[in-house]
């Protein structure tokens, strides 16, 4: 290995491990993703735009992005309250609750999907009561939001928790001694300190929600133009052997993923810079 490429080290195995890593990464992830980009770019501009701006596709974006945004917003509020309770209060079962937060990561999405459908369907345990109040969750857009709240919850809680631990308690105490109300302490000291983490969690949950498939399709009803998410539309196009349509929509979703990755990076850089500024 030439010196400009890497710093010298006595440790062995650089060529072998980096070689295998890049080979495995390329064959399994990069080449397949490049094939998708290539397939989509082999379409003419008119065809690509016709597929992407089709009325049914646009309706699916509205649902996918709208529901993911709403779910991430709900998680930002309730996930924050959960993280706060776990970090600041001692209560029976706290350790168990803390462990259970990761359940949506570990639970297969199909299981979450049918379980939520069972709870929220009009004959289900909670769905029955909601139906009496005139609210239907399962098989409507609300069902999509509920599924995405479940999927996104751990992202917000696990982002906010460490940031809350880091908040300087002596600053809060000082503010309190100087006559600040608890709400003022929260607004002026706690919230600014955890804002970058909260925003990171929100963005992660939002990004995950846009692409989510398994937990949504069981509870959404999957009606074209109404409760059809974009990933499902891709699956439907594939089932009809419409590879062009599937590739175009897939390319769009992939581009959105990159935008989200970029956004997450920006939020984290902003957070780091703020923290560095506060330390000075």
């Amino acid at each position: 290995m030439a010196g400009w490429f890497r710093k010298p080290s006595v440790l062995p195995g650089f060529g072998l491990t980096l070689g295998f890593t890049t080979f495995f990464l390329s064959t399994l992830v990069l080449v397949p993703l490049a094939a998708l980009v290539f397939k989509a770019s082999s379409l003419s501009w008119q065809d690509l735009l016709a597929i992407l701006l089709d009325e049914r596709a646009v309706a699916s974006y509205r649902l996918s992005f709208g529901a993911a945004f709403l779910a991430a917003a709900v998680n930002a509020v309730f996930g924050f309250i959960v993280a706060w309770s776990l970090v600041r209060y001692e209560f029976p079962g706290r350790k168990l609750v803390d462990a259970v937060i990761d359940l949506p990561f570990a639970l297969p999405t199909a299981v979450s999907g049918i379980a939520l459908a069972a709870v929220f369907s009009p004959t289900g345990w909670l769905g029955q009561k909601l139906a009496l109040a005139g609210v239907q969750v399962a098989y409507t857009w609300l069902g999509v939001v509920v599924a995405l709240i479940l999927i996104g919850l751990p992202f917000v809680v696990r982002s906010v928790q460490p940031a809350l631990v880091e908040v300087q308690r002596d600053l809060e105490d000082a503010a309190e001694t100087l006559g600040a109300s608890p709400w003022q302490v929260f607004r002026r000291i706690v919230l600014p300190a955890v804002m970058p983490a909260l925003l990171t969690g929100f963005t992660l949950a939002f990004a995950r929600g846009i692409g989510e498939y398994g937990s949504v399709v069981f509870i959404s009803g999957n009606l074209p133009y109404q409760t059809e998410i974009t990933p499902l539309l891709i699956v439907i196009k594939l089932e009809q052997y419409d590879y062009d349509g599937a590739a175009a929509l897939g390319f769009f979703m992939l581009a959105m993923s990159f935008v989200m990755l970029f956004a997450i990076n920006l939020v984290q850089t902003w957070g780091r810079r703020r923290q560095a500024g506060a330390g000075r």
Partner: protein
Amino acid sequence: MAGAAPRVEARPLTRGARLTRAVLIGVSLAFLGLLLAAPLGAVLAKALAKGWQVYLESFADPDTQAAIRLTLLVAAIVVPLNTIFGICAAWAIAKFEFKGKSLLITLIDLPFAVSPVIAGLVFVLLFGAHGWFGEWLQERDISIIFAVPGIVLATLFVTFPYVARELIPLMQQQGSEEEEAAITLGASAWVTFLRVTLPKIRWGLLYGIILCNARAMGEFGAVSVVSGHIRGLTTTMPLHVEILYNEYNFVAAFAVASLLALLAILTLVVKTAVEWRAGRRRA
């Protein structure tokens, strides 16, 4: 993932603060109960709706057994491959300084950022009947899509980052002095890895493997796209759950789902145990 909750500092509370505490804990528990406990309870209740006998009988179905076998097979191929990859990637990234490292880390995380449906779609575009290699494969009578190899590929894709992502920060934080000492004293590369590095990273490695395994066994979206849903042949457990559910065979669907839920709970138990051990060592 920063799980392990440290002890809460005990402080005297005013009446208002006590009220706030009660309300916030109440809201948290209600939210989590609704979102996590209720669905989990529903899985159990639906699986046992017609009693233990019927619950157990649902596992006697040959298609269900085939689905369980396929899921185990896929995990047995995917988890070791991604473990080897994860160790290699972490060694290269944590032990050496080279150009393009942060780009490599970003690319390794890429499968987490894309929709599982895309993970299936890319392989259909490559190997499907109308894909790039479709004709070539058909002439040679090789099937990848709507067959087990496609399921393995899609699962490899979605579980790709798990082990690497656990090991990279861990090994970066541990540094390389001990490995450098071992090599300088004449230990071979392999002995250095086995005797010096492996004992230091084993809990993180175990955690990564467990997460990788849970996702490999539970993946739905990506596998659903490439599987073709051929009963007893190309249906993994999550896909079999969907088939049973759509046939209104709820007891059987939730019975298989209960196995997957059990797997998830076991994963969380191991995760908590690993974090508890790591936390104790730090203390």
